[in-house]
């Protein structure tokens, strides 16, 4: 009986993995084909196997600089999001203060604003500040949805740490910054890792704002990809290769945080 259930579970998992991987396989498959191959016939494997699409990306500066720009944007965004979210999450998890519940929900509401709403105002705001087409502009714009999420997740992790730890440290004469950096932060390492992954993910894949706020110098890869739609039709093959390469950095990030996720977090909220 129990074995049957375990087998059923494995079967379900395998079915899901197949469902999850097939579109990705199709993309990888396309990335090794030529455009003619992709559009002319249906085939499980590339008929004329080629590295040309990847070569284009690695040799053409307008392609590979997209990856560099994306990484810079995401790094700035992650750094700011986590730095400002840490103390705020601590405040929410440890103290009650005037308007705390409202403030918390207000933060979440910013995660609910459709990016399309922000397009025009952002464009004007950053033009006025002279930040257009800089990495900082996109990184700042992405704070709208990443900071609330970072506060939310970190608060959950912090609430899981008993308050006695703080109190003992204060009695032992630790100052707040020293306690926070040397004792508290190591305790919520997993939370920081998981938060970093979520910030990375949402900033890495966002297109609408990134495309609006950049033109040449800071253009992230997602925006570069929209370029493949040109007069000569869609350059499917290069797009597929670029798509495959966009997964790589994220896969590395998830590889680093997998232990934190596997260790588990329940979110001490509610």
């Amino acid at each position: 009986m129990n074995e049957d259930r375990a087998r059923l579970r494995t079967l379900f998992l395998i079915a899901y993995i197949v469902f999850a991987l097939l579109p990705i396989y199709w993309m990888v498959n396309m990335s090794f084909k030529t455009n003619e191959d992709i559009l002319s016939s249906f085939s499980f494997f590339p008929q004329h196997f080629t590295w040309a699409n990847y070569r284009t990306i690695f040799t053409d500066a307008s392609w590979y600089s997209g990856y560099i720009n994306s990484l810079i944007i995401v790094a700035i965004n992650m750094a700011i999001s986590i730095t400002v979210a840490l103390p705020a999450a601590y405040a929410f998890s440890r103290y009650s203060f005037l308007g705390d519940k409202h403030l918390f929900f207000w933060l979440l509401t910013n995660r609910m604003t459709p990016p399309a709403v922000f397009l025009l105002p952002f464009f004007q705001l950053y033009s006025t500040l002279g930040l257009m087409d800089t990495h900082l502009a996109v990184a700042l714009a992405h704070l709208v949805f990443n900071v609330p999420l970072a506060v939310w997740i970190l608060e959950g992790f912090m609430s899981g740490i008993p308050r006695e730890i703080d109190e003992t440290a204060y009695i032992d004469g630790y100052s707040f910054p020293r306690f926070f950096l040397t004792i508290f932060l190591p305790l919520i390492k997993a939370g920081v890792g998981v938060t970093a992954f979520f910030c990375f993910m949402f900033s890495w894949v966002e297109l609408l704002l990134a495309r609006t706020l950049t033109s040449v110098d800071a253009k992230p890869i997602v925006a570069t990809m929209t370029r493949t739609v040109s007069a000569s039709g869609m350059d499917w093959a290069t797009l597929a290769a670029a798509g495959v390469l966009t997964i790589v950095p994220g896969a590395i990030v998830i590889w680093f945080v997998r232990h934190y996720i596997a260790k588990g977090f329940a979110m001490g909220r509610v």
Partner: protein
Amino acid sequence: MSTTTKPVNQKAWWLVLPVVICVAFSAVLPLMTVVNYSVQDIISPERRVFVGTEWFASVMRDEDLHAALWRQLTFSLAVLAIEIPLGIMLALSMPARGWKASAVLVIVALSLLIPWNVVGTIWQIYGRADIGLLGAMLQKMGFDYSYTGNATHAWITVLTMDVWHWTPLVALLCYAGLRSIPDAYYQAARIDGASKFAVFRYIQLPKMRGVLMIAVLLRFMDSFMIYTEPFVLTGGGPGNATTFLSEYLTQKAVGQFDVGPAAAFSLIYFLIILLLCFILYNWMQRVGAQDKEAGHE
């Protein structure tokens, strides 16, 4: 937030201040601009007329908007109804430790890391009957499948794409929640002779509540704002079958360049999400509190 007594400390505001400044800079300022536009008719940069609530009234009467709103609600509810149970099931069947756990985690997370426009593009090919795997398979099985020609097919394809794209988010969060349950809980349940369902209902589900709340709210708001993927896949068509709210808004703002009505629309849109999330948030908090009380008895 935790209901246990927390010390009152108004100085905590200082810790929250950086976040407030950041978010105010990148959200409140732009939002004010939108409010400003929503009450004006901008004829040219120099000539603008205050029109009061006229745009709001005209947007509220817009039949196309009502249709898009219903389509959006149906879509978001379908997303939640499929992705949340599927994500929980997936989390329950993922291996707990060892290299298999690592491998499955990475594989499951892959679809989250693909830029949204690429997701749309991949599915565009993937669903084509002549050169795409999904389309070809369905065609072989005897379905006359075409996401560009048939409204129902297009809608289901967008939904399937969303399930493929975002179920991993729910699964990862639930998985993390499940892994935080100490083995002692399971041992105790085994001694009590609890059924699988009882273990799920009284141990696993309560422990997942925090992460599930994040998952449900995130999925709800993000699916309500979905834009890039259906735009790339179907462009809102065929007809209006997959024109969701964001799509419709962008058509209005960019296509017809109606800044005023588009701004009014944005605000109404935002308020709808806000209201629905508020209801969802409070409902989940209440359910959580009741569960906790029941547990203490």
